């Protein structure tokens, strides 16, 4: 690597980005110093181990990544709006679809959901915290650092360009030289550590920290979906870890796992990638299913229909998710027998998914439906997700897939499931639990504008792509000829894309508007909810969540208490001192060392990687020797926070 190659140069878009990055940084530095916010930032946020704050940090990062990935998307759509456009060159286009896909799935969808899980799950199960609060902070910082490492590739060294699937040998040293692909490998590897730790943390939290009386079959559906998701994470992420490590060995140390020399197997990469990749799809869809279940039941004023069927279908989906990976490469020479098996297992997933859809419909049937914004997103989800699901079954027919494979038909399919499933779910969850996080609701009127703009834009954008795909337009092409006749539909699609972009801006405006003007909540029960998170007396639960751990007698315990007029009021004699973990700066520092480590490997600067590695191990040792048993919140402080007089 020569120094003049260090910064990416030569493109006006990049210079624009450079300038905006420098300006934003300067702005932040100025603001923080001028208003003396550094200490606040450090003690309230950077060192926090409070699951609610970590959750908010996840969500904020995810929204930023949605912006980044969204800009990538609009750049691509701009290039494709008309035939033979000259807006982006082919290399730049390749980089953008790679970063778009990777960021959206790894650094947007998953962290968004993990953020919501962080905020909500401990509250839903009546716990004061997660099982390992400190580890939770480590998870966040490794995710964040991985994301940042991946993002700076844009201006330093160059972005990866082999697709989010990074198929070998395309991603090898010969065909993808330079640091770009290394950013992919190390960004994902470091963030993956955090994801695995989250998986363990929340699995133990849900298994062991539930309030007395909350048996497994009394848990709210969102908690259930999180539990199942964590199990998938624990078995899927080690596969990714290995796959990424093997590719790193190929690129750094000349091993021959996936190379054509030395008799390596490029198809081994495809298999390992999708053995993780398909379950990953369910890691980002099951929590969204959970969110919709909560919302639909709350705003239909009914208990979720078929609660147990919902759970069993989720468990089935989780099991199946490990058995279908070959459907991602039916056309890559697996043979008819193998393809048939995987074709059938893939279609089988449709059955439990269908069960869930019918359960949501039956929940609404004869319910008193309130059309709040979270409910609108949930209804929009059902309609659009079904479109994605049906086309998914079409793709699952191996023989037919030879026609659709790698066309816009596939692109449209997975956007219908990913956007209508995951993104709608994230928005719905964010709006629904917004008052829990910030103490006020987002404005409903503006919210409805966001919903309609986004949903219409989404369909205008992706519906034409099914037809483009059937018409033979391949995916991952940076331009097409006039004669192909794909021009008009592409133009329509691009317009729809921009409409979604506008909807995103309106959403951000809504956050600002509501921050300024929304009426503040006075109780913790903003939506007349059913589950325990709505039972805290103050709008935003204090750092210890519950002054007194609730006792649960059945599903929708809080709702039934309200119906019977028997919501317990806390009195002074209920209050005991509360044990809480102390804040720690170590996770943040460990994350920073991970950054040094990753950056060193990206540029093949071993001294730097070793330095970072020593730092990481050093912080691990430091923590191991630290005996911090946390502290107690005194009865007086609890009484004061809960506004209870003695």
């Amino acid at each position: 690597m020569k120094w003049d190659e260090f910064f990416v140069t030569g493109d006006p878009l990049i210079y624009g980005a450079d300038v905006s990055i420098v300006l934003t940084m300067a702005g932040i530095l100025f603001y923080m110093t001028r208003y003396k916010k550094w200490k606040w930032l450090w003690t309230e946020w950077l060192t926090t181990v409070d699951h609610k704050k970590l959750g908010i940090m996840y969500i904020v990062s995810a929204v930023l990544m949605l912006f980044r990935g969204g800009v990538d998307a609009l750049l691509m759509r701009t290039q494709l709006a008309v035939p033979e456009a000259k807006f982006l060159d082919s290399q730049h286009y390749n980089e953008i679809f790679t970063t778009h896909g990777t960021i959206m799935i790894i650094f947007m969808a998953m962290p968004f959901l993990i953020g919501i899980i962080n905020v909500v799950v401990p509250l839903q199960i009546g716990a004061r915290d997660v099982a390992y609060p400190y580890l939770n902070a480590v998870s966040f910082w490794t995710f964040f650092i991985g994301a940042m490492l991946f993002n700076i590739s844009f201006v330093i060294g160059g972005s990866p360009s082999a697709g989010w699937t990074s198929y070998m040998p395309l991603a090898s040293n010969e065909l993808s030289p330079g640091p770009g692909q290394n950013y992919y490998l190390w960004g994902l590897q470091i963030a993956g550590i955090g994801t695995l730790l989250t998986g363990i943390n929340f699995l133990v939290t849900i298994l062991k920290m539930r309030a007395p009386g909350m048996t497994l079959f009394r848990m709210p559906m969102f908690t259930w979906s999180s539990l199942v998701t964590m199990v998938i994470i624990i078995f899927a992420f080690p596969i990714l870890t290995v796959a990424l490590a093997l590719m790193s060995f190929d690129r750094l140390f000349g091993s021959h796992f996936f190379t054509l020399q030395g008799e390596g197997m490029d198809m081994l990469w495809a298999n390992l990638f999708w053995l993780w990749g398909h379950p990953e799809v369910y890691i980002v869809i099951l929590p969204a299913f959970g969110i919709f279940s909560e919302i639909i039941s709350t705003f239909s004023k009914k208990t979720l229909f078929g609660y147990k069927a919902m759970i069993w279908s989720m468990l089935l989906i989780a099991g199946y998710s490990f058995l279908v990976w070959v459907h991602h490469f039916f056309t890559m020479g697996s043979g008819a027998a193998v393809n048939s098996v995987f074709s059938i297992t893939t279609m089988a997933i449709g059955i439990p998914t269908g069960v869930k859809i019918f359960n949501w419909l039956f929940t609404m049937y004869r319910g008193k439906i309130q059309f709040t914004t979270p409910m609108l997103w949930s209804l929009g989800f059902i309609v659009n997700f079904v479109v994605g699901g049906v086309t998914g079954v079409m793709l699952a027919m191996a023989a037919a897939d030879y026609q659709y494979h790698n066309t816009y038909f596939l692109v449209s399919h997975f956007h219908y499931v990913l956007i209508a499933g995951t993104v709608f779910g994230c928005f719905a969850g964010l709006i629904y639990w917004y008052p829990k996080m910030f103490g006020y609701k987002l404005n409903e009127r503006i919210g409805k504008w966001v919903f309609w703009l986004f949903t219409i834009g989404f369909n205008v954008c992706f519906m034409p792509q099914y037809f483009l795909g059937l018409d033979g337009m391949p995916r991952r092409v940076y331009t097409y000829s006039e004669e192909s006749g794909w021009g008009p539909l592409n133009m329509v699609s691009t317009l729809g894309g921009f409409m979604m972009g506008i909807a995103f801006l309106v959403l951000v405006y809504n956050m600002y508007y509501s921050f300024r003007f929304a009426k503040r909540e006075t109780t913790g029960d903003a939506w007349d909810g059913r589950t325990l998170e709505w039972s805290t007396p103050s709008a935003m639960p204090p750092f210890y969540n519950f002054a007194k751990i609730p006792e649960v007698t059945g599903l929708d315990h809080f709702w039934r208490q309200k119906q019977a007029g028997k919501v317990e009021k806390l009195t002074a004699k209920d209050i005991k001192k509360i044990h809480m973990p102390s804040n720690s700066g170590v996770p943040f520092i460990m994350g920073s060392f991970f950054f040094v480590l990753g950056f060193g490997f990206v540029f093949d600067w071993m001294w730097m990687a070793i330095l970072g590695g020593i730092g990481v191990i050093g912080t691990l040792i430091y923590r191991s020797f630290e005996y911090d048993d946390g502290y107690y919140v005194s009865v007086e402080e609890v009484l004061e926070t809960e506004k209870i007089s003695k």
Partner: protein
Amino acid sequence: MAHAETHDPNTPLEYRSEVGRLNILGFWIFLGAEVALFATLFATYMVLTHRIADGPALGELFEVKSLLIQTFLLLTSSFTCGLAVHEMRRHNVKGLMLWMIITLGLGLGFLYFEIQEFLHFIHEGANIGTSAAWSGFFVLVGTHGAHVTFGIFWVTMVLIQVAKRGLTPATSAKVFITSLYWHFLDVVWIFIFTAVYLMGMVMHHG
């Protein structure tokens, strides 16, 4: 964090505190993830064993003597590690220390022979870049070796803590967790022994 401490004298020390119990459960789950990790490495290795390109076949270079010494050292270390935990349960810090130090010694011995073996292979012209098969071998066996190395450092750190603080619910949970880790490495080795070495040699000679 809830804070229920158990005072039943029959409960082993490491299970007395809520934190200890949670950590041990979490570690079991982590081991589940480790199983997935090694399973992936094994699968990779199996797929690649015959892809030797122009390099030597795997079984051609394996040596029974070194293999048996390594296996003996590691299996014995798992046994002594068990004795250490047994002593811990009897609140015998000296016994715990003694057996753990022996465990570490055996672990170091294992590593010594493993590294010798690797150097020997490299000397014979088989390194990570020789062929897909050897890439698979070095990374699978090397990952296990790296785990042993990490384990040695980790156990040492925990022993220092025991020396400084004595046996508390916190330190004993740490000892117990490291012992789980150590036994796990032993189990993985048994698979390596069979799937890599025995099968490699049988395939080559048989």
